[in-house]
């Protein structure tokens, strides 16, 4: 049963992308925008629904005092949601890309640092859905997201901006 929802969501996303490609002329980079934006919106919503648990997850890294962790727990999910929406709707696109790339890079560094310090933690990045993921799974997903964000940033910086992007 645990595997059902991730598989279902993946199939649904694949069908949605195929339908989009079939019905409209959609480019590869637009699909990357949608996938990355969707991932951050999902991650943000899951955490915004349970900010106290997310605060505990941040506190588990043992890098910030609690009074900062708990405030970040209320703020970061909304920042992820807004940046995810920015990628999907191409509004404040470059700002969203920059913030998400910075957040992901900070998160990767924090995860590696926690592993080096021997902390056995759950990252909390996707709420309880990711509670049982291994360190390597987390790292692989985060690196893939970072690569996608950097690639999108390079595309914007090289002047090949997505149409209508603000």
């Amino acid at each position: 049963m645990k595997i059902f929802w991730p598989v279902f969501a993946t199939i649904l996303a694949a069908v949605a992308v195929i339908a989009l490609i079939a019905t409209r002329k959609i480019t590869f980079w637009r699909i990357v925008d949608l996938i990355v934006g969707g991932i951050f919106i999902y991650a943000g919503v899951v955490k915004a629904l349970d900010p106290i648990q997310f605060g505990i997850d941040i506190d588990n890294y043992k890098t910030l005092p609690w009074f900062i962790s708990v405030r970040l727990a209320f703020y970061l999910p909304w920042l992820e949601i807004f940046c995810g929406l920015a990628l999907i709707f191409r509004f404040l696109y470059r700002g969203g890309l920059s913030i998400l790339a910075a957040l992901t890079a900070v998160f990767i560094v924090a995860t590696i640092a926690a592993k080096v310090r021997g902390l056995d933690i759950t990252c909390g990045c996707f709420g309880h859905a990711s509670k049982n993921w291994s360190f390597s799974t987390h790292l692989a997903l985060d690196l893939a997201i970072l690569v996608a964000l950097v690639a999108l940033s390079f595309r914007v910086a090289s002047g090949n901006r997505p149409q209508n992007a603000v």
Partner: protein
Amino acid sequence: MRWRLRRRTRPVQRNNEIFVSGHWLRQAAVLVLFALVPAIGEAIYFRDKVSWQSPIPASELVTVDQARAWGDSSIWVDARPDEEFARGHVTGAVSLNEDRWNELLPQFLPKWSPDKKVVVYCSAQSCNVAREVAKRLRDEAQLKDGEGKNCVFVLQGGWEEWLKKNR
């Protein structure tokens, strides 16, 4: 017609050039501010449900002296891994860690009654397992005293603090 199109497109292009270095920063600042609005709203909604100064609310913490004063009306729960429990623990403490939760919980429950307070500890102030075990005892095992109030407490300072007080 050509002249008009040129006049219209030029300023836009110049605009893009100007904002190559600064525009993304301004956009990021706008997003940062946008996100503050729902975050503050949610924080206001949760203001009574969250402990802002400590991960464990003061009402759920107990000092070594307080816990010792409870005497026989309390049960000590060691939330550390088996190896650490085997190396040393509070006299009479019951081992109940998350690694073997399903196995250890049934052994713990018969020892508890609603008139007994539960004191959970882990290695130090900074460890989280005591907090997690205390939470699970409240939520999953539904431990409450006779009046329906909280009876599960986390030991301030954990095992290290207990050792200091017992030297």
